[in-house]
């Protein structure tokens, strides 16, 4: 029996699917869904990859799943502490394969804004800032971002501010996965519960949808891993459609 995707399960599982064998993958601050994706990949996939996180954890085995992706719980079971200076420097010298970096807005070229909505000097919303994104996005080998709100105000033709630009390859939302092709984000696959017209209508930038597929169904192992990470559905409840 095929299980329907929820906004939560679609986003986390498709983030997890970006991780490749033997990679060094990193999740940062305010990145609960990538944190869950990395922990899910550890449980659902047979290949090895190394998970680093902003709390300084290296291959942690957390006994509790924290609400915050920078919680020291993400160091539990870690045989080393590889803290902020170390992982930023590793990224800058080209040693991080996959970095999850958040955004408020992303444009069709895969650049992100985490700084401000409106004018810098007269903002409508002052955002928390890149947290190193301007350094990591051009230097990581691959960057993946995500938004739980897929709308014309989050996936935009023109950013209010360019916080970071560079090697962003993939954008995951609850309804679609975009991948960069010839310098532009193109639709790679979409949630089978959503029509292509809806993806187009809810996306502010123009994109190529040729070759786009329906996202492969969640596997039993992905589902089991996700339920294990969120047995009470608390994380799922925090992601609204």
């Amino acid at each position: 029996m095929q299980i329907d995707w929820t906004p939560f399960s679609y986003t986390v599982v498709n983030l997890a699917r970006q991780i490749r064998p033997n990679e060094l993958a990193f999740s940062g601050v305010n990145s609960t869904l990538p944190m869950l994706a990395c922990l899910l990949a550890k449980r659902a996939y047979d290949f090895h990859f190394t998970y680093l996180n902003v709390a300084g954890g290296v291959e942690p085995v957390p006994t509790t799943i924290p609400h915050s992706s920078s919680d020291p719980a993400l160091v539990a079971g870690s045989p080393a502490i590889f803290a902020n200076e170390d992982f930023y420097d590793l990224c800058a010298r080209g040693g991080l394969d996959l970095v999850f970096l958040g955004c408020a807005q992303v444009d069709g070229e895969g650049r992100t804004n985490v700084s401000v909505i409106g004018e810098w000097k007269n903002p409508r919303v002052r955002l928390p800032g890149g947290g190193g994104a301007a350094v990591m996005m051009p230097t990581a080998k691959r960057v993946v971002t995500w938004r739980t709100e897929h709308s014309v105000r989050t996936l935009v033709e023109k950013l209010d501010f360019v916080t970071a630009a560079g090697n962003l390859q993939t954008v995951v939302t609850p309804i679609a996965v975009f991948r960069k092709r010839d310098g532009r984000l193109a639709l790679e696959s979409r949630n089978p519960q959503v029509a292509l017209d809806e993806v187009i209508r809810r996306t502010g930038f123009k994109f190529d949808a040729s070759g786009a597929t329906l996202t492969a169904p969640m596997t039993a192992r992905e589902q089991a891993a996700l339920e294990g990470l969120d047995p009470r559905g608390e994380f799922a409840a925090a992601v609204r459609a």
Partner: protein
Amino acid sequence: MTLVAGLRAAAYGVPFQPVGGVHGSDLAALNGWRKIADPYGSGQEVYVIPAISPDIAVIHANEVDEHGNARVLGSPFWDHPLTRAAKRVLVTAERLVPSESLAAQPELTLVPGFMVEAAAVVPRGAWPGSMHPLYEVDYDAVEAYLKDEPGVLEAHLAAAPEQSEK
């Protein structure tokens, strides 16, 4: 990371620090960061961040001795560059310990006492944040503090651990 580059410049005693990345970001123009060509001829252009020297760094440690030697367990986050870049360093710590216990494992001392101007023993001083391995983030306190209502700040301060010790 650009912030840390500025702290490192101050710690290294140089006016600026090269940093990887930043290319393509509006932050460079906004902050007036300059880009220089590699003087050794690689052809690379590198952003350089001006030194940032905080007047005072305050760090919270697990243990401190009477000389201000401070031990931090768990992830140090930015404590190392911050204490090296700042003009003055203040320490708060969970508990006071004899110097001999720090000397037994000196590699765990994050900042030596000669750099520390003053220290205070403040149990649960990281609240509502966490202090490895003693206590975790008090998420309830953080969420209560986030409410935009009258009296929230007062209630937060009244709930602080030092209040219950008076």
